[in-house]
């Protein structure tokens, strides 16, 4: 059998997961639907007063994105765990963190990136100031991969549990706080015409930190869960 190089293995795994993700349409659509649904609930709950909605829209959009991303986390490893692929992955000659990174990237492309497409529409419905649209998209682009990366650690820790869902949210949501703070604040300040450069740089820092550390932690957690 031909041995794959590391980058080949990465791209192969990424392509495979993307293919599986796009075949399973409902998995693709559900987080998106959830995102839209949660945002629809807010005007119904707090009233449709345009000024109020515009004022709190950055927070609403980001809390909804957080929840949508969290609910889709389980899919990163679930099917591979159940059919034994995950175990094979851990036994392979390639460093597990790199393989984990491929899986998380694929998962983000399938569940995180689509949020980018509906976010402007929802922002428009909530009456967010138009000058903030660019920053909103940028925060989603930078923030949601961090959520997927942090979340993958939580999923890896709870994958063997029958009722892992509620524990997963307890583990992951507190760790999402910094992303929420900086992303929502970036959108908020840019909607009143201020510069959001500092917040965006912080989000970038979070992204690089998460990219470098979380695959290692996830790999360790997976090894622990499979032992």
């Amino acid at each position, binding site marked *: 059998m031909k041995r794959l190089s590391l980058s080949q293995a990465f791209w192969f795994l990424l392509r495979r997961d993307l293919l599986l993700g796009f075949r399973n349409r409902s998995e693709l659509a559900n987080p998106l639907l959830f995102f839209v649904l949660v945002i629809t609930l807010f005007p119904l709950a707090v009233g449709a007063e345009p000024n109020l909605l515009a004022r709190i829209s950055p927070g609403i959009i980001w809390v909804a994105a957080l929840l949508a991303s969290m609910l889709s986390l389980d899919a990163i490893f679930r099917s591979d765990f159940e059919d034994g692929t995950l175990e094979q992955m851990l036994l392979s000659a390639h460093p597990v963190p790199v393989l984990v990174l491929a899986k998380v990237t694929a998962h983000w492309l399938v569940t995180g990136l689509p949020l980018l497409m509906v976010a402007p529409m929802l922002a428009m419905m909530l009456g967010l100031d138009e000058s903030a649209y660019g920053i909103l998209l940028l925060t989603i682009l930078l923030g949601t991969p961090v959520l997927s990366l942090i979340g993958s650690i939580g999923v890896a820790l709870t994958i063997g*549990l029958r009722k892992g869902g509620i*524990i997963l949210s307890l583990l992951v949501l507190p760790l999402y706080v*910094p992303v929420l703070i900086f992303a929502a604040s970036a959108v908020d300040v840019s909607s009143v015409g201020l510069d959001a450069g500092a917040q965006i740089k912080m989000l970038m820092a979070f992204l690089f930190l998460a990219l470098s550390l979380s695959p290692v932690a996830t790999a360790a957690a997976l090894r622990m869960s499979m032992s």
Partner: protein
Amino acid sequence: MGSPPHFYRFAGRWLPWLTGIFAIFLIVGLYGGLVMAPPDYQQGESYRIIFVHVPAAWMSMFIYMVMASCGIIVLVWRMKMAEIVLISSAPVGASFTFLALVTGSLWGKPMWGTYWVWDARLTSELILLFLYLGVLGLYGAIDDKRVAGRAVAILAIVGMVNIPIIHYSVDWWNSLHQTASLTKFEKPSMPPSMYVPILIMALAFKIYFVLALFQRVRAELLYRERNSRWVEELVQS
């Protein structure tokens, strides 16, 4: 110290001493805080809550650090004792976090007029409490306690990496929204009659942590090692 029977006996021998030392420190600290320290010129007597609030807040951070250090030992050397110390620390740490939160809001009521303000310190303390509850929840959810111990070790380390980031973010967020803050007492201008009792109380709480930890570790050891020879000999004698 690494072997369970050794630790069990060691902890048992030290428990009465630790309890005594703790009681002395506690009484001295309480006397210093409640009687000796002069009332604050702005807040009157209500500031006396800091003598429990600040040490409890320190302990909440300190115990998480202890847990993360144990986590590293568990992952690197696979030491069983470190696993037990880690998970036995968690309830004590959660208790101190809870105390810091409740005493903070009891102090906030006379100062701000409400029990809860989204003050930076209280908010990060609340998130820290969630981190503790996550550790306890994960440990409880996994049936195989050997696996659970290692899972919790990973989680504690991940939490430790995140705590400074969360702390910084919340501080930054708080400075943006400008609410009242409890930070007044962290200035160096505090007279010795105020900070000495705080330090004594902090020491008392540290001793208490060791004592509560030993108590828990002993109970946990008996349960985990129930099939081993030394437990059988210990119980029979």
